[in-house]
């Protein structure tokens, strides 16, 4: 099973996220991650959805999304032509024994420490999913107190843009 990342341009109206996520629930499709935010135009939002599946499932999802009235554009973002990023905020226990190891990991992963207290450290990391996963694995032995990750956002390389001509 392959991972697909799709970009969806939707009308920026209330309820639109329910409609999109509700379609996944209703049809029994699973989502790996879903992110949503405004676009360059305040009339539209952009939803990035990642899911695992085969070609059949991918087609079903695209076709069902296109049937939703508030969905204006849907496109599969092919990994070779797309920049994909995720943001991680992770809080790790800060002890005199572990501090230096954590700092080294932060440096090598080009992460940042964005909050520091005598008992806890908050690190910020941006990158592809595999990098984020590796960083989390690395920090596990030091005691992860809490973490949150945004899920994927993705944008095509070069001239190609996901925009809608529909209103």
């Amino acid at each position, binding site marked *: 099973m392959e991972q697909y990342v799709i970009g969806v341009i939707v009308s920026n109206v209330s*309820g639109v996220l329910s*409609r999109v996520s509700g379609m996944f629930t209703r049809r029994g499709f699973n989502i790996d991650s879903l992110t949503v935010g405004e676009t360059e135009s305040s009339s539209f939002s952009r939803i990035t959805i990642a899911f695992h599946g085969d070609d059949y499932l991918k*087609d*079903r999802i695209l*076709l*069902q999304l*296109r*049937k939703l*009235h508030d969905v204006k554009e849907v496109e599969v973002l092919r990994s070779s032509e797309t920049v994909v990023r995720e943001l991680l905020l992770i809080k790790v226990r800060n002890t005199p024994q572990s501090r230096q190891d954590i700092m080294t990991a932060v440096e090598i992963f080009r992460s940042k420490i964005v909050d520091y207290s005598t008992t806890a450290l908050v690190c910020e990391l941006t990158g592809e999913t595999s990098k984020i996963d590796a960083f989390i694995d690395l920090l596990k032995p030091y005691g992860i107190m809490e973490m949150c990750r945004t899920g994927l956002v993705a944008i095509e390389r070069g001239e190609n843009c996901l925009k809608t001509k529909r209103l």
Partner: protein
Amino acid sequence: MFISGAKIIVETLIEQGCDTVFGYPGGQVLNIFDELYLNSDRINHILAAHEQGAAHAADGYARATGKVGVVIATSGPGATNLVTGIATAYLDSIPMVAITGNVPCDLIGRDSFQEVDIVGVTMPITKHNFIVKDINELADTIRMAFKIAKSGRPGPVVVDIPKDIQIGKCEFEAQAQPVIPYPVLFADDDQLKEAAEMIAAAERPYIYFGGGIISGRASAEVMALAEKIDAPMGCTLMGLSAVPYDNPRFLGMQGMHGHFASSMAQDESDLVIALGARFSDRATGNKARFNKNFRIIHIDIDGAELHKNIPAELAINADIRDAVERLCSLVNEQKRPQWSARIAELKAEEERRIEGARECTFQKECSNCTNPCSNTGIPAKDRLNPYDIIDIVSSCAGDAVVATDVGQHQMWAAQRYPLKTPRTFLTSGGLGTMGYGLGAAIGAAAATGKYSLLFTGDGSFGMNLNELATSVSQGLPVVIVIMNNGVLGMVRQWQTLFYGKHYSNTTLNRQTDFVKLAEAFGAKGVRVSTKDELEKAAAEAFSYGGTFLIDCLVDCNEFVLPMLPPGGSIDDIITEIK
């Protein structure tokens, strides 16, 4: 015009060509009903007994006419009572606009009296829905609801309108014309050529059509194609009435309770041309076995239906009428004598099996003493047989619009009723809503001015019989034929076949007197248990001009046959139960 929101709603409905609406008043739609009162010479409101009945009536109106059906209900329970009716319309792709009132905007989200988030509730069972929170957007939102409801594959749309929006005022200008649907998709030339080549190469093509032929107004085109390529046709439950029953190429409904000949012909074909159908599980049975023998060309207006249930060799996303018409011009006239001869054999075999099944039933005595038919003392062979009931009633019914509820009677009507013109068979196919029929029959009678004929069962009728009140108060010509066997027949049939005859909660033992019930509602009622009695009653019913109920006593050992067992295939077809 600087007018109130409530007046904008009514003016927009009239502008959209709506002559009749169905509904039920309540606190949060009082303003709309005030405008309906003031405009009763321009738009007719039919008051139902229950919002569910109103929703089914709007659905029946839409199915019988092809226009958008409109239903109005108040907030909270009024709105939730619409839900089954909306879902019924959604599953069968029926254009409908449901207008609900809601509490004023500043009370939303506070669990106010009779407040429900109906937009949230109906999201998965509508094409789209709206809540209007700005009166300046009210008229255009209602117009958009009509546009969405009737574009492409039709469906229901909910417009939720808080009371303060109905009370507020703004500038309104009526449009000269109803909204036009979104442009249709036209089939790709190359794809149609490929389809024509596949048809030319096929030896035994078979046309399988669905409700898309009715909503896409493609009956003539489909019949012309069948004629030109010399192919038999079968249809889904939703496709019934698209092609006249006596078209020599038409083999009837196929699928779980479809005709033997159509199901067999499909299985023996080498190319299935699927038109405006979606290969539902009831039509296909076991999906792994279903398309073992044939290739498939699938044409549908909804691209999401292509390859969804059954993969097609060639899938064309297009308006069905245009696609079939152009396909027809691309194919050469062909004659297939061998295939026609085989179809004739299958039809003859079907007749033999129907007779065989009848003999089996006659030999049984009613084993269930609470059943009404066992109390009449009539020998089994003289009892009313379901097919006889349909034959007798249809011979008196003229061009009546036929509605059904859900269960055995529905399947018997689907198999047997001689349907002649599109939009004359109203049945809940996708959702299978017991209690659908009476509302639908009322909506159809109100829309067409013709007789409506409802086939129902004693189980289904019990679900929404309160709409007798509506039919009587509106003076509508509705003939109700109850196939009364004292049991929930279809569920009982499954219990007989697959649950070791454990008749759990399917023996009704109700003692309901449907004749007295009809009289209590102000309708006329007659009970019949023989063919002679039914002939007299049916003749009277179709000259009565009002609501007429015929309670037909039917043996509870009657089965709907043939039957493909659930998850089974054509190999498992049951045509006789010993």
